[in-house]
């Protein structure tokens, strides 16, 4: 292998005497090794190990106009509505009052936030305290073997659907990108939020968003 031929040519000593040439038992493997490394380089560079994953998101059912009429507005408690535009996130808590509510509260103001740890994440952790405490309590039970995993999963689903859990609405304007949207949904999943509703933006909200984003 990769021998350097010594005493090349094999000429020299034959003075008419015929002697069987000693043939070498070594095969030159250099081309094969070259090829092996070539293939190795190719596969190393082309292989991707990270298989894409999926993130599930349930959308609200689409209602016809007639069905919409039958729905009466309900009072929303413990909710955050996110408004996305370009790469910015705005939000307001609970209900939306463009002109202040009858009880004399001031009109809703949009607050800006971002994807830093003390932005959306801190906000959600504060709002979703109930589910986070519930998870800690249940995880302790699982650790001390008082609860099995399947019951834990079931209890977590129940906790996320509880009245005290945070509800999140996501509204986008026509400039929001998918990256922004998916990043936000990802933050919601990190914060254990079970009720996520991507819904259409209202005209009054859109106006407010435009005024704010300027």
């Amino acid at each position, binding site marked *: *292998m*990769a*021998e*350097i031929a010594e005493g090349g040519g094999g000429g020299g000593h034959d003075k008419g005497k015929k002697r069987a040439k000693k043939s070498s038992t070594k095969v030159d*493997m250099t081309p094969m*090794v070259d090829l*092996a*490394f070539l*293939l*190795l380089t190719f*596969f*190393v560079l*082309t*292989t*991707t*190990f*990270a*298989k*894409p*994953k*999926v*993130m*599930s*998101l*349930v*959308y*609200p*059912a*689409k209602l016809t106009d007639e069905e919409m009429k039958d729905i009466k507005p309900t009072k929303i408690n413990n909710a955050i509505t996110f408004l*996305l535009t370009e790469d910015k996130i705005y939000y307001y808590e609970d209900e939306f009052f463009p002109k202040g509510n009858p009880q004399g509260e001031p009109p809703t103001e949009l607050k800006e936030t971002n994807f830093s*740890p003390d932005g959306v*994440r801190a906000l959600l952790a504060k709002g979703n305290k109930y589910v986070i405490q519930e998870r800690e309590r249940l995880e302790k039970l699982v650790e001390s073997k008082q609860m099995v995993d399947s019951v834990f999963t079931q209890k977590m689903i129940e906790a996320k659907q509880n009245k005290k859990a945070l509800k999140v609405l996501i509204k*986008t304007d*026509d*400039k*929001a*990108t*998918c*990256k*922004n*949207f*998916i*990043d936000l*949904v*990802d933050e919601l*999943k*990190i914060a254990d939020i079970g009720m996520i509703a*991507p819904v259409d933006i209202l005209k009054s909200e859109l106006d407010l968003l435009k005024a704010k984003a300027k």
Partner: protein
Amino acid sequence: MPKSSPSIDMTPMVDLAFLLVTFFMLAASIRPSDPVDVDIPTSISDMAIPANVVLVTVDAGGRVFFKMSDPEAKRELINSMMGKYKSLKLTEKQVEEFTLMETFGCTVGELPQYIDLSTDERRQFNTSGIPYLDSTKNQLKDWIDFGNRAAVNSGRTAYEVAQMDGLNPDPKDFVPKFILRVDSKTLYANAQKVIDVFRELELNNLNFITSLEMAPL
């Protein structure tokens, strides 16, 4: 003085090289070349892509592409499409080629021409993707609707086969799933129009393709 040989024994190194070649060859999965490049957003979700899927791609420019995982379901799908769009006429060979095609995106009128192209030519093919904005002639809606029906049937067949093989299959694994592959740079408004098509068909449970990122601690 003995002459020292200039050669080094390279056997261990070559052994290792071949071992690595073998490993990477087996680990590599051949990725079918898609007619469109998509920059996938990231999330912490670690759910694998299910087996029986209807996949809709939205690229950075808002063009829409369609894909189904099961070739048998695709045969049923194209037959349903030919039943609805009378102008769409495909030869037996083109139908065969369609079932083998991965992601595709073109109007129904362009389809016969599109099928006859090679994989590389499909990348270059100048198309606006599957039409999905028009509410009366929404071709994407038909692809999804017929695709869903075909996938339900093929899923049922696969479930029965698994049952007959004495396995204990979970029916949930055979129900078709709906997957959206959106480019991170595309406007959400584009994706929303596709999502609305799904919602009109009462398919509200959607999945977004994301690549894995580390969860924060």
